[in-house]
């Protein structure tokens, strides 16, 4: 009996080992794509090892394509124009690609595998994107569920960004999270201050990265970011502006207001900031300071359901209702929005209802 069990184990192990060896050898031959040449914007030529996704290969080459889901093909952000060598469009990409995307050869770089020489086109601005090693030097509570994180840049030690842009924060593995992920957060600090950045983060229930930021990240810890990304910034016109934000949507507007202060802007701007209750509001003092420094800027906090004990005296109701109470006609205005998709869609409807042209509405949706 013992001998039988022994031979059984031996046989199974031998067969399994032989099969595993066979697989390793065949993988070496079948999945080996050899070195491939990657041509970027018809000027930069890189020789890379084939067989991996375009996104991770570019990341290795220090070219950071924005991606919110970290390469799982669920966010559709990492679009790249593939001119040659991309192969057929995969079924995992089609839900994210529009008709124009398909015609122009736009693909999701996390799904396209480099199998042969490839030519791609990426916006020049992406070359400016760097990876920064930072130190988290200060964490402040803004509300019961929002914190402001101050990151000092270590290497490289300066960052150039436009007010309104965002960075991606690397969330490492921790207990309960077994993969590294990147999440996007808007920069909430003065663009002139280029040796550190602030991020405003609101705790998301079961959020992988926010849980790490709130429960694991301590002052003095090293953090890694990439950036800056994003097209959300003030236009070059002098048109009067309406800002609408909720929760951590506050972040890009802090940066934008610093920029307006730095340039002594005379543009008219009204900032509607919405919260469910009075305890959701934050940075009131800083906003008052901006109102004093910028004569053409008005801050309007709006509370949807003020608790009686809070003694709230300001505007009540939804932030979009406050906008329609304040304005009769928005046809000459520009709109800037940052917040949840629901709030943004509602605000766009209100703006358009008041005559604002769709091309004059700029927004940064949370994903």
């Amino acid at each position, binding site marked *: 009996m013992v001998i039988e069990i022994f031979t059984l184990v031996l*046989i199974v192990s031998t067969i399994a080992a032989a099969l595993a060896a066979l697989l390793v050898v065949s993988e070496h031959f*079948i999945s080996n794509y050899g070195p491939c040449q990657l041509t970027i914007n018809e000027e930069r030529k890189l020789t890379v090892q084939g067989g991996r996704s375009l996104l991770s290969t570019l990341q290795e080459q220090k070219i950071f394509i924005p991606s919110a889901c970290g390469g799982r093909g669920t966010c559709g952000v990492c679009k790249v124009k593939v001119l040659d060598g991309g192969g057929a469009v995969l079924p*995992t990409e089609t839900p994210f690609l529009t008709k124009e995307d398909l015609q122009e050869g736009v693909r999701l770089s996390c799904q396209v595998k480099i199998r042969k020489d490839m030519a791609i086109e990426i916006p020049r601005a992406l070359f400016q994107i760097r990876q920064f090693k930072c130190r988290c030097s200060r964490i402040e509570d803004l509300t019961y569920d929002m914190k402001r994180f101050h990151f000092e840049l270590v290497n490289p030690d300066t960052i150039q960004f436009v007010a309104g842009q965002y960075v991606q924060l690397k969330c490492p593995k921790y207990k309960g999270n077994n993969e590294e992920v990147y999440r996007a957060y808007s920069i909430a600090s003065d663009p002139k201050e280029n040796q550190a950045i602030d991020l405003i983060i609101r705790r998301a229930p079961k959020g992988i990265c926010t849980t790490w930021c709130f429960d694991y990240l301590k002052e003095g810890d090293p953090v890694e970011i990439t950036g800056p990304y994003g097209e959300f910034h003030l236009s070059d016109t002098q048109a009067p502006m309406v800002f609408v934000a909720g929760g951590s949507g506050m972040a890009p507007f802090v940066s934008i207001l610093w920029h307006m202060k730095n340039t002594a802007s005379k543009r008219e701007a009204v900032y509607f900031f919405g919260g469910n209750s009075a305890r959701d509001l934050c940075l009131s003092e800083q906003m008052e300071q901006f109102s004093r420094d910028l004569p053409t800027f008005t801050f309007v906090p709006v509370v949807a359901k003020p608790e009686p004990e809070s003694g709230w005296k300001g505007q009540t109701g939804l932030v979009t209702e406050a906008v329609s109470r304040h304005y009769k006609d928005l046809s000459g205005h520009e709109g800037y929005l940052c917040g949840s998709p629901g709030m943004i869609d509602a605000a766009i409807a209100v703006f358009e209802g008041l005559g604002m042209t769709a091309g004059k509405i700029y927004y940064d949706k949370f994903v």
Partner: protein
Amino acid sequence: MNSLGAEIWQAVVVCFAAVFTNNILLSYFLGMCPFTAVSREVRTAGGLGAAVVFVMTFTCILNWMAYRYVLVPLHLEFFRFILFIIIIAAFVQLVEMLIDRFSPALYQSLGIFLPLITVNCAILGASLFMIIREYSLIVTIGYGFGSGVGWLLAILAMAGIRQRFNESRVPEGLRGPGITLIIAGLMALAFIGFTGVLS
């Protein structure tokens, strides 16, 4: 020489029988899971079917050899289930690599069902039937190939029917797997018509 010829003839007969009269899917109802899940499109269904033919033919041969030359001499026949599954798993891995290399689009559309061929009971079923029926190696080749082709034929027919079905108005409660199983039942009834053609 004569016996070899007879064996090849038997293999051909067994092969045809496996395709039509003893279709592994429509007579034994093995491998229903990918059959209902991947039969929306003829192209994808054909791809999966081809992968099943390939895997089934070669795993039948490999399993026959492993059984005859390893398990029987050591009197470990009871162990065949686990050994067969290990061999099938390794082989599916190989097929996965090949498809990823040569047809990335097919690889993506098969998705999880490609590695799931491993636990497709039709494949294990074919290997077990050939042992129970005491086929020789040559007959086994015919049987494995025939069973695979039978499965391919069934899923192709189903995908064709379902594609035509796209425009028809199926009662809401029957949409999806419900109507698919009813079609499978009707197809199985039709295949009964082949009974007795080959013995």
